[in-house]
């Protein structure tokens, strides 16, 4: 089973990489981009019987830093 884990910065946490992208897009002449935020996509191939609680624990213990990041798990 494939899992996609999206790790994103919490709202309100300044994202310097997102800001740089936002400025670069406007430099390319694209108007109307109000903000850009950079996150991560982590794809895991796991056993079919992997419990939701285990995936959640993986995210909390390692994949996301919950001080600054949120995560979302998607089953592909």
């Amino acid at each position: 089973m494939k899992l996609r884990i999206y790790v994103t910065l919490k709202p309100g946490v300044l994202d310097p990489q997102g800001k740089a992208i936002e400025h670069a897009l406007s430099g390319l002449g694209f108007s109307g981009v109000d903000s850009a935020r950079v996150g991560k996509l982590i794809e895991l191939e796991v056993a079919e019987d992997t419990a939701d609680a285990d995936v959640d624990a993986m995210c909390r213990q390692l994949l996301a830093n919950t001080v600054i990041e949120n995560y979302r798990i998607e089953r592909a």
Partner: protein
Amino acid sequence: MKTAVIVFPGSNCDRDIAVALEQATGTAPHMVWHRDTELPAGIGVVAVPGGFSYGDYLRSGALAARSPIMTAVREQAARGLKVLGVCNGFQVLTEAGLLPGALMRNAGLNFVCRDVALTVENAGTVFTHGYQAGEQVRFPVAHHDGNYVADPETLDRLEGEGQVAFRYAEPVNGSARDIAGIVSADGNVLGMMPHPERRIEPAHGGDDGKRMFTGLLEAVGA
């Protein structure tokens, strides 16, 4: 006094901090590999050095913080062992939950590598008692992810409890409230982005950093 330095794959300031500790104590520190599960008996200080543990993959310090030796560091820190984390070591200590907050990409997106001025905010910690409160010192910095963030309540608590040890005296990386180094609530864990171990003799351009090591060892009772 016996000391130890943790070595992760990618640590590159481990020997610098070992030299600084040896100069201050007269004894070479134990170099402890990250896969070890125990710290040497009877050490008074353990250093988590700078570098790029695990290539900064996933997040700076994230993988190192989950390595076997860090369980022992966490247990010993809870019993009062003095833990000094510099640069990547600071990132590892926040990721390990030994210090609050997190370190993000520098606000200017530049790798910052130069000498910076710092203000000693709290000279009452075991790590900083070789300095005067309010004194300005110069340490080198060399980091990409030194932008300290924490929620406003945590920042207020750090300020209120005297846990801000060093503050940048000039803009460096966008750190919240210009925080350059913090101590834990119990005061026995210090994390800082600047490198005191790279400023321990005149050939380094000054020895402001040396006083951290000599002061720490006096405080711990070398």
